[in-house]
């Protein structure tokens, strides 16, 4: 009677599955999902590449997605849309002025070479932080998902234009 063997196989299977389940849940857990509401979002520029706030904000899905909405509201898509090319293109790993959050912040706030003006006065620090986090996420973002996300925001104002709601 090899019920013992059966049992052993079963427990093995079970452990595997449980480990998988916990791993999966943990992967999506804790701070990345936290909605930083209240006075939480940073309100001063990054102190440098190793500003701890950078790591926090670029891993926070809520801040990143808010960055996506600021991206549209500030009209960034008019130069940096999905069809953008060359330096304006943001979904490739090539960065003209550095690709970490603090440098992206700097590029948005102070401009970056010819063609990229400074927006430091037109946006608050909080908005730039989230924009930077979103821009940083673009190269990792599947283009179809980016398209899908843009569609979802299609009814919202795009910079100074607002085509009106979708009807």
């Amino acid at each position: 009677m090899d019920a013992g063997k059966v049992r052993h196989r079963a427990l093995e299977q079970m452990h595997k599955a449980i480990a998988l389940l916990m791993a999966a849940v943990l992967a999506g857990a804790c701070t990345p999902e936290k909605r930083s509401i209240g006075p939480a979002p940073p309100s001063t520029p990054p102190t440098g590449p190793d500003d701890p706030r950078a790591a926090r904000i670029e891993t926070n899905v809520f801040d990143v997605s808010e960055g996506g909405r600021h991206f549209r509201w500030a009209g960034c898509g008019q130069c940096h849309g999905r069809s953008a090319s060359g330096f304006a293109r943001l979904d490739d790993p090539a960065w003209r002025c550095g690709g970490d959050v603090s440098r992206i912040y700097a590029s948005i706030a102070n401009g970056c070479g010819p063609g990229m003006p400074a927006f430091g006065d037109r946006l608050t620090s909080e908005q730039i932080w989230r924009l930077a986090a979103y821009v940083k996420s673009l190269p990792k973002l599947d283009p179809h998902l980016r398209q899908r996300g843009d569609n979802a925001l299609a009814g919202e104002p795009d910079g100074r234009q607002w085509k009106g709601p979708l009807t």
Partner: protein
Amino acid sequence: MEGSADVILYKRGLLTLAAGLLSGCAGQQSVLSPASDQARTLSWLGLLMGVICLLIYLLVVVLLGLALRRRARPAISPTGEVSGPVEGWLQRGLTIWASFVAAVLVVLAGASFVTDRILATPRGPAPLDVRVTGQQWWWRIAYRSPITGEWIETANELHLPLDRPARIELTSADVIHSFWVPGLHGKLDMIPGRANVLAVTPRKLGWLRGQCAEFCGLEHALMAFDVKVETPAEFQAWLAHQAAPAQARAGPGLALIENGACGGCHTVRGTRAKGRAGPDLTHLASRRALAAKTLSLSHGGLMGWITQPQALKPGAEMPASGLDPERTKALVAYLEALK
């Protein structure tokens, strides 16, 4: 004894009804204080149904009480079968009850159908075109200009002329919201990809309150707006004033708006502030409230909202300005001048 319990329940019901009516009328967001043809029609329908339902409920409770009261009981065979006159009455009662319920339902459905037809055909002069767009978490309101035919935009405060039908086009810029002013009409959803139209004919002067009635995310609770029903003359004056550009007096405040972060999201017509993401501020000071009725429009309100919006309406898309007190004062001074 069950009956008595329900009598208590019923009394409590009446008390709460009284309380409800009182405070309901006090509030400007009550189904029980209609201010338009449509809302009045609906409140009559509601009253009719409410009364009928209450009577039916009492009937059921009485029957239940009678069924349970102490009295001689019919003989029951060991197999549980019951025979005798009572059973015969109960059989006939079943038929009567069925036809009674059916009849009541026909009446109610008929009343509902008629009401629907009445609502579908608003009477009165040429309707006023208004477009209300829901956004997280405020209301973009636009009027068709009688002169230029262009849209005149404002936010969070809806003005309607008395006795004139208004054709309110309801749309959404982001997620699903629901436009609900109980004093004017039932709610109607604002759905991305669709335009719904609500026809209302205000019949009572004064202020009403509306609120988003479809869960729309974090600050769904703080998405309300004011409605003012005014005489046609007042309304024309108001609309003309709203159509005019801001009496922009140059100064530190205006500079902040045009060159600072405000202009990135807000428009002040007649200035270089042309952002679209946020509410139009051209005549901000002419309104009663701020941030979709989160705050009253006052000096303190403006100061607080500009310096700490996230503390007052956590998660709202309005960021903290990060301005020092001096510049904040200048900014507020300018905004207060936007009559």
